[in-house]
């Protein structure tokens, strides 16, 4: 791995953000709207639901963590799509940068994009709704790590689709997370799902992450084995995502789509 090249590719995306105030605004706008929406829903449920009655902010914390996953995945996809939209694909893939360095650069830059959007929203939630994700304590770091790895994995799978099918796959990029959300048990316990879907849900890291989050906030109990299970599952998916990306890259070389990928 050459860190100068990873930095160079990261810089390309940071310049893109820095050159455009509307772009920064767009990054901050959607997470903030999400926080407002779920903040009010959360407030309503804490006042009216028996399940949530003792714990203020579980829904809002879940919304923040889910948005972190969503932003990480979308950031990864967006950066890849930027190369397609700007017709820069050929220049990028003929530069002396390894595929793993491209993945590393996108992965690292995605966290910056994600945090630019999410940090202001998280800070707003503290005075406005009295909810802070920091209440999760040290486990928050591990939960975010698992979410981030899974978000990047979804990004890798979508970008693999873009390599395979071209820009027409773009709509799937936006839809991918909504497809998994019901199985992620973000706002409700896994028992709500039918038994058959519970089996599928357990194979995703999301269930373990959000179950653990609820357990910490409601019972004040941290089960590290659950947290590490979610990280392990995320790592397995991440490796799978990287393999699929490589397969798509070599497939694109075979079909010649790298040569004329564009809008």
């Amino acid at each position: 791995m050459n860190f100068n090249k990873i930095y160079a590719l990261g810089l390309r995306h940071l310049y893109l953000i820095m050159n455009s105030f509307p772009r920064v605004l767009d990054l901050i706008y959607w997470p903030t709207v999400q926080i407002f929406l779920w903040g009010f829903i959360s407030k309503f449920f804490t006042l009216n639901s028996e399940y949530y009655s003792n714990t203020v902010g579980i829904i809002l914390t879940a919304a923040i963590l889910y948005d972190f996953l969503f932003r990480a995945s979308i950031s990864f996809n967006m950066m890849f799509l930027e190369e397609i939209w700007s017709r820069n694909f050929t220049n990028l893939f003929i530069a002396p940068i390894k595929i793993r360095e491209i993945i590393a650069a996108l992965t690292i830059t995605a966290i910056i994009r994600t945090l630019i959007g999410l940090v202001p929203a998280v800070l707003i939630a503290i005075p406005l709704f009295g909810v802070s994700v920091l209440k999760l304590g040290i486990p928050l770091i591990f939960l975010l790590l698992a979410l981030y790895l899974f978000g990047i994995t979804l990004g890798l799978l979508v970008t693999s689709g873009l390599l395979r099918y071209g820009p027409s796959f773009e709509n799937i990029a936006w839809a991918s997370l909504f497809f998994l959300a019901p199985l992620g048990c973000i706002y409700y316990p896994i028992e709500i799902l039918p038994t058959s879907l519970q089996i599928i849900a357990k194979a995703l890291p999301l269930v373990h992450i959000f179950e653990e989050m609820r357990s910490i906030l409601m019972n004040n109990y941290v089960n590290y084995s659950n947290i590490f299970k979610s990280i392990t599952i995320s790592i397995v998916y991440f490796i799978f995502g990287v393999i699929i990306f490589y397969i798509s890259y070599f497939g694109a070389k075979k079909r010649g789509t790298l040569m004329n990928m564009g809008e």
Partner: protein
Amino acid sequence: MFIEIKELKKIYNKFCAVNNINFQIDKNKTIGLLGPNGCGKTTTIGMMLGLVSPTSGEIKIENKNINLFNRDEILKRFNFASPYVELPKKLTVKQNLEIYGRLYGVKNLNKRIYEISDDLNIKNFFYRKTGELSSGQKNRVSLAKSLINKPEILLLDEPTASLDPDIGDFIRSYIQDYKTKNKVTILLASHNMGEVERLCDSVIMMRKGKIIDQGTCKELIKKHGRNNLEETFLKLARSEDEL
């Protein structure tokens, strides 16, 4: 032989884009790759750049199969410019050159950026976004990017397409001047026969994925009994019997 293309073939589904072509390029020579649209020029360039995998055949650089080189090692020696491939539109000219300079591991990058910008006359729009530039300005920036690493092998795909005669001439003069001052091997795909006659040491004529003739411009003109390269191109492009 510096570059050797041996029995190179590319089949997309059932369509044969490049059909067992063979050619060699000596070091520091400029070779023109000519042929009608869809004849396989871009696919050949794509295979040389590692963007397209050949169905069969091989590309050798200094007698070594290109696949045996480390990806970084070989791509550092190449670069490419084409008006059909753009640089990120929302980044300024300087930002784009900086990023590509870093990706190619250019030493003394700032010095190199200013040097090439001076040569190509792009300093006056250095801080403008690349997407806001005219075609002529974009082409010069694209050429600057392709020379940022002082490549040993430069692939140019219609570098003066859709440019006005003045800018087109500026770019041709620059390439001509650059190759006399630097050690560079150029493969130039073009539809501008005047440009090819002016810049190329020899030409390769392609049609329907095959090489139908090759030689110096003078040799080809004489061989086909025509007055200039354009007439020779038309004769070869339109004749069916030679395939």
